[in-house]
């Protein structure tokens, strides 16, 4: 390449990692903030999230930056503590869904036959429901509580990864090095684990990262309608629900709403960045 004018941008570009685009950086910053909060919330929050620390329904002030709720608890402290529940829960739900979905999907893709068919029909039927309705029905059947909401979300989410993993395995299975491994007498489990699976993970993990935001949204939605976290847990969805019943005290729902918006936006930024990075068509 003829280096006509090596501008300052070009020298910067040499040291700037290609994957760290602006949205990616924003996303990492936001998600990083909330990830730190899952540990640091008790240290950073001005008050205990469960304590009645002030007058009821106080508007934002220097003492209570985001005001107080109907019981006189500090909304900012509760919002920061919300991360303690939401983020680990979402990670757990996605991890379990990936584990179950990817295992069943890989089995279905590699074994085929009636096992594969049964798995895929189960996937088809589960994906035939609008996710929220199914999650609600499952959560209602299991009873309230964050744990049950988590199970409900895993039930809704695993088929997504099963379908993705199966498609990957079907594609990789046809590659030459797999045929070579089979020809050289490798056992079937060994072929699957050593030769096929390592090449299938990338899209599954990328899509799992992108889904974290959606899972947080779904969890908050379940809590909002009373099927997730139970009071007095400082969970964003149920805090917004408190805000809905204190409609004229707008600040009650402001903090948790912004929290959900930012963290989901953060994950979507990261997802966009990953998408651009892995998509060969992008400029």
């Amino acid at each position, binding site marked *: 390449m003829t280096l006509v004018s090596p501008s300052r941008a070009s020298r910067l570009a040499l040291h700037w990692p290609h994957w760290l685009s602006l949205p990616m950086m924003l996303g990492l910053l936001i998600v990083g903030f909330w990830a730190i909060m899952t540990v640091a919330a008790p240290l950073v929050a001005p008050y205990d999230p469960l304590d009645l620390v002030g007058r009821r329904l106080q508007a934002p002030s220097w003492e209570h930056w985001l005001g107080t709720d109907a019981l006189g608890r500090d909304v900012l402290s509760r919002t920061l503590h919300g991360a303690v529940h939401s983020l680990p829960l979402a990670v757990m739900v996605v991890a379990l869904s990936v584990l179950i979905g990817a295992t069943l999907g890989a089995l279905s893709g590699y074994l085929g036959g009636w096992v594969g068919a049964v798995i895929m*029909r189960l996937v*088809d*039927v*589960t994906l*035939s*429901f*609008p*996710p*929220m*309705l*199914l999650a*609600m*029905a*499952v*959560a*209602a*059947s*299991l*009873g309230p509580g964050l744990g049950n909401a988590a199970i409900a979300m895993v039930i809704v989410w695993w088929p997504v990864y099963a379908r993705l993993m199966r498609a990957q395995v079907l594609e990789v299975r046809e590659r030459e090095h797999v045929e070579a491994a089979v020809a050289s007498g490798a056992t079937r489990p060994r072929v699957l684990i050593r030769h096929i699976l390592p090449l299938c993970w990338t899209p599954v993990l990328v899509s799992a990262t992108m889904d974290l*935001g959606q899972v947080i*949204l779904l969890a*908050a*939605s379940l809590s*909002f*309608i*009373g*099927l997730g976290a139970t009071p007095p847990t400082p969970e964003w*969805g149920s805090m*917004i629900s408190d*805000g*809905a019943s204190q*409609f*004229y005290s*707008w600040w009650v*729902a402001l903090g*948790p*709403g912004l929290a*959900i*918006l930012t963290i*989901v*936006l953060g994950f*979507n*930024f990261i997802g*966009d960045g990953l998408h651009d990075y892995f998509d060969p*068509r992008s400029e």
Partner: protein
Amino acid sequence: MTRYILRRLAAMPFLILGVVTLAFLLTAVTKGDPLTAIISDRQMNNPEVVAAARAKWGLDRSLPERYLIYVGNLLQGDMGTSFITRRPVAQDVLYRLPATMELVIAALIVGSSMGITLGVLAAAFRNTVVDHVARLFALIGSSIPVFWMGLALLYVFSVKWGIMPGPGRVDPRAALPPSVTGFLTIDTLLAGHLRLFLDALWHLLLPAFVLGWAVAGTISRLVRANMLEVLSREFILTARAKGAGERRVILRHALRNTLVPTLTVIGYSFAYLLTGAVLTETIFSWPGMGSYAVEAARGLDFPAIIGVTIVGGVIFLITNLITDVAYVVANPRVRLG
């Protein structure tokens, strides 16, 4: 193509049966006692009342029996009786379905117009401020919890500024027209109530925007990506070589070539809209299936939960089928093969 459609149609009964079975099985794992929803706490200690209630609602049969009874009844259009409303679930759902459909269709119109406009703008002005703003706006739409945005918009536009109506489908003091389609916007027109029609439309605006913004993000992202892909194709160069202006190149040549994938993503958005409708209806006191489902789930009203879940699943299956078939019919390249 005909074979594809027939195959998809043939699979439908099995998928619907699967949906029914799965929905039914959910209630079998329940830990909560649905009896608490039927009889008052004091009477829980009265064995006679409890036994009578169990018998009446079929709760004393074995699971397979209950399943067969349920499927048998379902085939006759009977989804059991709601524990809460004490009315047949089928009747409740039929009564509430139009309100949801009206909201979802309005949201689909709002969402697709927003999504397509944003996507086209972003692609036409790619890597400029317009592109970044359009993408951010779309991304916020898919990141914001609809129930929070609903609250916020109601607070700002209805309470603070008073320029938008409050929750509900129409002014609560208004006399409703006879229900023909169940769509208030259509029924009011049929009855010749222009004022009521405008009022219904006015009430529809905020919830449709809240719900529509959420899907606009997905649609605009896809439209942008497709537009960029189409704009890099050679016939775009041909159009420019013909002397077509940028506007014409974008709207007539590029946009028309993204129509099929756009329609597809709009079709698939239905699932998201049904999901979002549950929450939007709760915020806007919209008397649709979503708020019904929430009441049922909160009250452990199992016949209602199963009923709504099945109806939701079937609607979803049908819209996806229509979308897939439309894709095959509309796409000349698939049609060729």
